[in-house]
């Protein structure tokens, strides 16, 4: 259920009222930036995706229709933009594998001390395919079937990517922990 204030802001943004658009941006940009950072490897990429998300959000606002949570709608839009960005880069799931795993980095941290920033770094260090499938399945809650449809891959490929992503994450956590202790 939308709060009255939020509904007024969306209606204002639909009328091209720049103050309302700015207010919507101020309200949802931090949340969407968090989403962008999970899907992108670098801060610069995340900023580009956030920019594209808001450009598309204001363009598609008439289609929102006040159905469901605005935050959820904006978040789905943001995920779509992030996926399209990687598809534009000719992202290919088959080209990713354990061999492409980047060098383990980050400060040594015990598992119990892993915070937001450390977990984000672990996700960002994953190869593109692993990162996207892990985000979609583990954090957004999509099924393998939905992921397959969105990315144009087989369900089995999605499962395989997820298992490999988990394995890499475990290895990374264990590695950091060994260094810390």
């Amino acid at each position, binding site marked *: 259920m939308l709060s009255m204030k939020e509904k007024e802001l969306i209606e204002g943004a639909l009328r091209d009222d*720049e103050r309302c658009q700015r207010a919507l941006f101020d309200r949802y940009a*931090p*949340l969407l930036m*968090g989403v962008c950072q999970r899907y992108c490897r670098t801060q610069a990429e995340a900023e580009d995706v956030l*920019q594209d998300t808001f*450009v598309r959000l204001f363009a598609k606002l008439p289609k929102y229709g006040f159905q469901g949570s605005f935050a959820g709608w904006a978040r789905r839009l943001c995920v779509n933009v992030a996926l399209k960005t990687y598809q534009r880069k000719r992202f290919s799931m088959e080209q990713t594998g354990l061999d492409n795993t980047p060098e383990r980095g980050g400060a040594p941290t015990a598992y119990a001390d*892993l915070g*937001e920033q450390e977990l984000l770094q672990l996700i960002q260090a994953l190869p593109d395919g692993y990162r996207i499938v892990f985000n979609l399945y*583990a954090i957004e809650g999509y099924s393998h079937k939905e992921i397959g449809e969105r990315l144009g891959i087989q369900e089995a490929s999605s499962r395989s990517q997820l298992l490999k992503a988990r394995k890499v994450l475990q290895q990374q956590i264990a590695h950091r922990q060994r260094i810390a*202790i």
Partner: protein
Amino acid sequence: MSELDQLFRDGLGNRKPEVPADLWKKIKANKATIPEGEALDQLFATTLANRQAAVPRGMWARIVAARRPAALRRYAAVALLFLFALAGGSYLVYDSLTAAATQGGRATQVQTDGTAAIVPPASPTQDRAILSDTADLRATSGTTATASAPVQSFTSPSTEESVNSVPPRSDFRPQQLATVAISTLPPEPLLLAPLLLTLGPINATPEGGFRASGRQRFQGELVLGAAYAHQRFGLQAEGSQAQRELREVSEFPEVSYQLSARLRYRLGGAWRLVTGLTYTELRNQFEYESMLQGNDRLLRSNNRLRLLEVPLLASYELPGRRLRVGINAGPLLHYTAGVSGHYLDPASARPRELATAEQYRRQLGLGWTTSLTTTYPIGKQRSLELLVEPFFKQYTGSFTAPDAALSEHYWMGGLQVGLRKQLR
């Protein structure tokens, strides 16, 4: 036990050294097994699903800037639609005129001194015969006809035979005959019709002959247009990259415009020479965020570059009936008459004024322009023509002085409309 042993036993035997504060934590962490499968997913999901991150400064300005081209695309789409509509309309008009001319060829009534003379339905051979009749009449009138030579050169031998077989129609006045001849041309021998029209206006002299009009070579035009002016910065001094980046994100094109008074001189054939005076205003919107009473506020103002231009264009007019299309191209001389507005400079906390920064040169420059003019006559006399003209122009040099940090270049594309008047 020696005294030495006793010394150490007393000194260190019951010593309780300090234990590192995080030792137990480390032991616990080492003992904890790293989660697997769904538990690992859960660890990431609970921590990161609703995580809010810091939004970089200036992101809103980037979004506003990125949304702006959509408006320009709308303008371009409207202009394109307008051109399509114009082209479609002109096709329909041309089509209907051609159809009317074909029908008129079957039964045309010509008023002669208040009485009606009916021209019989004409076949292509007879049409040419009528044209040749006009040539005969001209020959009998004894005047020189500039228009007659090309007409005769396109007359085939079979036509000449038919000319001999058709009796002279001396009761027709030359102007009426010309009207009949041109209007009764069937659409097939279009090779002939455009040639006739490119000869320029054919005037009937009081003596009854024809000649190409020696007067009426000048036409005046008044044109007003809106355009998109594309601004591009180049680096002229070392370390000016930051200034270029600042200006690129703070200045955005607005609708620019130009007003022209032009003179058009008819050369031989389809060629024309066009010159005149154009006032052009290149406009950009300047935006920056300023901290006012603790809040960021987006401030906007307009930047303007005012130019006076003298174009010298060669124009080639394609044949047509009422609707005519001309292609123009040529150089232009421009003078920067003034500049106003603001710009951001990394060395200054406040925006600087363009006019006082003495970055812009006030001198002559060169450019080139090209355009496509479509005209349609209006009014009974047809001395006035409506004019629609998409145009493009580029200023070759920079608008800034050589010692300025950045060079500033422009090209411009737009659409202008206006009126053309025959001058006597």
